[in-house]
């Protein structure tokens, strides 16, 4: 699954560490999601969407 996390984060001038802190997960986890090595669970995807104030489908895209 592709995602726009890196772009959305850059638009807000957030580092991976900032996003990790906001979601209360590790920076390594953010990196794994951004690089497509790990697809988050639905609950985490919803938390990410809520943080960016966007619908899930505006962040996570079909391959």
């Amino acid at each position, binding site marked *: 699954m592709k995602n726009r996390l890196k772009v959305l984060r850059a638009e807000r001038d*957030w*580092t991976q*560490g*900032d996003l*990790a*802190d*906001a979601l*209360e*997960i*590790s920076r*390594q*986890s953010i990196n*794994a*999601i951004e690089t497509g*090595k*790990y697809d*988050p*669970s639905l609950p*985490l995807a919803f938390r990410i969407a809520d943080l960016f104030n966007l619908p899930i489908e505006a962040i996570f895209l079909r391959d």
Partner: protein
Amino acid sequence: MTTHKTMPAYMRRYAARLLLFMGAYVAALTGSLIFANNGGDHAQGTLIGLALISAFPIIGVFWAIFRLLVEADDEYQRLLLIKQTLLATALTLAIVTVWQFLQVFDVIDTGPQWVGAVWFAMWGLAAPVVRWRA
């Protein structure tokens, strides 16, 4: 936003439990060995008790590791920990299987021993392996 790099609560709990059980292990093993080696023959029941007292803290470390898997609230880190645990288990089973057959074919005198210690070593070895390029 400001970045705060602190150890997550689940890791702090794991570290505290590990420290507690390792301290208890050193105390129990030292105490049991001193008791067993001083004062001549001991009853079978006493020796079984000493063995259980020495084993209990090691069982505690296993419990601490499995609590870590349950309590890790970072799902990607939990996935890595589960991969680490499965890899450690697979490596341990491979080692003791080869070890056992070496004993069966009389290459060595003694079959698998200290399997728990082997598993701990493999758990430590598996940690960087599963995190490599993760």
